[in-house]
C-alpha cells in the first residue's frame, strides 16, 4: 500500500467520524423525545434506558400516553387548530401574493414601483417587537383572542416574501403565450388563473412548504393574541400544558412528538423544496 492510499483512507475516516458524530447529536434529542413519550412516569424517574422496554415487547410500551395526550390533555384540539391555521393561512398567502406578484410582473398601474420597494424594504429591515402594536390593533378591531385575528397576522407576515419570490418567477416566464391569449380575447384574470398560475407551480410548491413550516412552528404571535385554550395552536398548547403539569414528562413528550411528526414527514417528503426555498431566500437577499 502506498502512502497516498493510506492518507486517503485516513482523511475519509476522520471526515466520516466528524460527520457521524454531529449527525448523532442532531438525532439523539429527537429519539429521546419519542422514546420518553412511550415510557411510564415511574420509568422516567427511576431508569435511563434508551428504549421504553425490550424491542420485542413494543406493543406493550406505554402507547396509552398518546390517547391521554389527545383526549385528556387537549392535544387533539391544539393539533386540529394548528392544521386549520396552517391550511387556511397558506391558502390565502398563495392566493393573495400570486395575484399581486402577477400584477407587479405584468401589469401597469400607478405607484407600482413604489409599492414594490416598500414591500421589499419591510423584508430587509429588521423590525423587532411589532407584536406590541399588533396586539393593540387587534384589540381595537375586536379581533383579539379570535382565530381571524391570528390568521390575519400570519397571512400578512407571509405576503412580502411570497410576492418577491413569485414576481421573480413570473418575470422569467415567456410572455408570448399570454399575448396570444390576450389577442384571442382572454381577460387578464383568466390569463393569470389559467396560464400564469399553473406555470408557477414549482415556486408555489416552495412557498407552500416554507409557509406551512413557519405557521406550524409560530409561537410568539399565538402567545400575544390568544388566551382561549380552545383556539390555541399546538406550540402555544404545549406551553400551557407544560405550565400546568410540570413533571408529567411522558405526556409532555407525547405532546411534543404530536407537534413534531407532521413537520418531520413534510420535511422528509419535500426536502428539495425546502432547501431550494432557503437558498433562494438567502442568496437573492
Amino acid at each position, binding site marked *: 500500500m502506498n502512502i497516498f492510499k493510506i492518507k486517503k483512507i485516513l482523511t475519509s475516516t476522520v471526515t466520516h467520524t466528524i460527520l457521524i458524530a454531529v*449527525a448523532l447529536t442532531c438525532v439523539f*434529542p429527537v429519539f*429521546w423525545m419519542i422514546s420518553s413519550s412511550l415510557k411510564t412516569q415511574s420509568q422516567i424517574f427511576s431508569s435511563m434506558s434508551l428504549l421504553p422496554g425490550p424491542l420485542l415487547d413494543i406493543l406493550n410500551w406505554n402507547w396509552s400516553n398518546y390517547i391521554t395526550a389527545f383526549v385528556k390533555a387537549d392535544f387533539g384540539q391544539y393539533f386540529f387548530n394548528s392544521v386549520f391555521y396552517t391550511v387556511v393561512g397558506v391558502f390565502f398567502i398563495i392566493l393573495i401574493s400570486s395575484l*399581486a406578484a402577477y400584477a407587479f410582473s405584468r401589469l401597469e398601474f*400607478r405607484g407600482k414601483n413604489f409599492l414594490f420597494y416598500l414591500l421589499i424594504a419591510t423584508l430587509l429591515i*429588521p423590525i423587532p417587537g411589532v407584536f*406590541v402594536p*399588533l396586539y393593540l390593533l387587534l384589540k381595537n378591531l375586536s379581533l383579539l383572542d379570535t382565530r381571524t385575528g391570528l390568521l390575519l397576522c400570519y397571512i400578512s407576515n407571509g405576503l412580502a416574501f411570497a410576492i418577491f419570490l413569485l414576481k421573480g418567477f413570473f418575470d422569467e416566464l415567456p410572455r408570448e403565450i399570454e399575448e396570444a391569449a390576450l389577442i384571442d380575447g382572454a381577460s387578464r384574470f383568466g390569463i393569470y388563473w389559467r396560464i400564469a398560475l399553473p406555470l408557477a407551480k414549482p415556486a408555489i410548491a416552495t412557498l407552500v412548504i416554507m409557509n406551512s413550516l413557519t405557521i406550524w412552528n409560530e409561537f410568539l404571535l399565538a402567545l400575544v393574541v390568544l388566551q382561549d385554550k380552545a383556539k390555541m395552536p399546538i406550540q402555544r398548547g404545549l406551553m400551557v400544558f407544560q405550565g400546568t403539569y410540570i413533571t408529567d414528562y411522558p405526556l409532555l413528550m407525547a405532546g411534543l412528538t404530536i407537534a413534531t411528526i407532521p413537520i418531520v414527514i413534510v420535511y422528509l417528503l419535500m426536502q428539495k423544496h425546502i432547501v431550494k426555498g432557503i437558498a433562494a431566500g*438567502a442568496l437573492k437577499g
Partner: protein
Amino acid sequence: MKITPKEKLGNFIFVIPALVLFLIFSLYPILRTFELSVFQWNGIDKNMLFVGFAQYKHILFNNPAFWKSMANAGIITVLALTLQNGLALLLALLVTKNIRGENIYRTIFFLPPVLSGIVVGLIWKFVFDGNFGILNHFLTSIGFSNFADYAWLSEVRTALFSVAVVHMWKGFGYGFIILLAGLQTIPVELYEAAEVDGADSWQQFKNITFPLLIPIFTIVSILTILGSMQIFDLIYSMTRGGPAGHTHVPITKIYEYMSNGEFGYSTAMAVVFGMVLLIISFAQIYASKKLNYNNR
C-alpha cells in the same frame, strides 16, 4: 399596446387584497411603534401622556436590566457567529467533497432547524433537568459524580451558556445548507486549473474557496446575528429569562413590559433594539465589502 386609464384601474384590483393586508397589519404597526414610543400609556386609559424622548432616555441611561438582556443576546450571538458558523462551514466543506452519504448527512443536519423553537426548548429542558435529565445521568456514569443533581438551567453559572448551546444546535444546519449551496456554485474548473498549477488543498481553500465564499458568509452572518439577537421561543420555553434575569434577552424584555401594560415604554425599547440591529447589519456589510476589496 396602449393602456387606458380604465384598464389601469382594473389592473390595480390585483394588488388590492395584498395592499390592504400589508398596510393594516404590517406597515401600520411599524409606524405605530414609533408613535407609541413617545407616549406613556398602559393601553387602557383614554388619554395617552406625551413624554417625548423621556422613555428613550430612560432606556438608554437608567435601565441596566435592558442592557443586560442586550449583552445576553450579544453573548449568544457571538457564540453562534464563531462556533455555530465555524461548524457549519467545516461540515459544508466536508460534505461538498462528493463523499458517500452526502444526502443523508444533509437531511439529518437540517432536521433541527425545521423543528419549532418550543419543541426544541422543551426537549432540551428535559435533557438538562437536574434530577431526571439524561445529561446528568450520562455525566455521572462516566465519572463526574458532582453533576448528580446539577440544575443547568437554574444555575447562574450555566443557564445562559446552556441556552446558547441549544440555540447553536438548532441553528448550525441552516448556515450549513446555505454555505453548501454557495460552495456548489463555485466552478470545478477553478480547482482543476489550480491542481494543474500545483496548488495544494490549503492554497486552493485560501485562494479560491474563501474569497468566493465571502459574500455568502456575509449573508449567513447577518442571518445569524438577526436570528440570535431576536431569540425568543427557546428562552421562553427553557428559562423565561431566569434565573434572576440571567437569560433575559431584548424580546423577552419587550414582552415583559408589554405584559405589565407599559405599551409606550415597550415600543420605545423595540425602536432602540431595532436601531441596534440595523447598525450591526450595516457594519457587517461594510466590513465584508472591505474584506472583499483587500483580497483583490
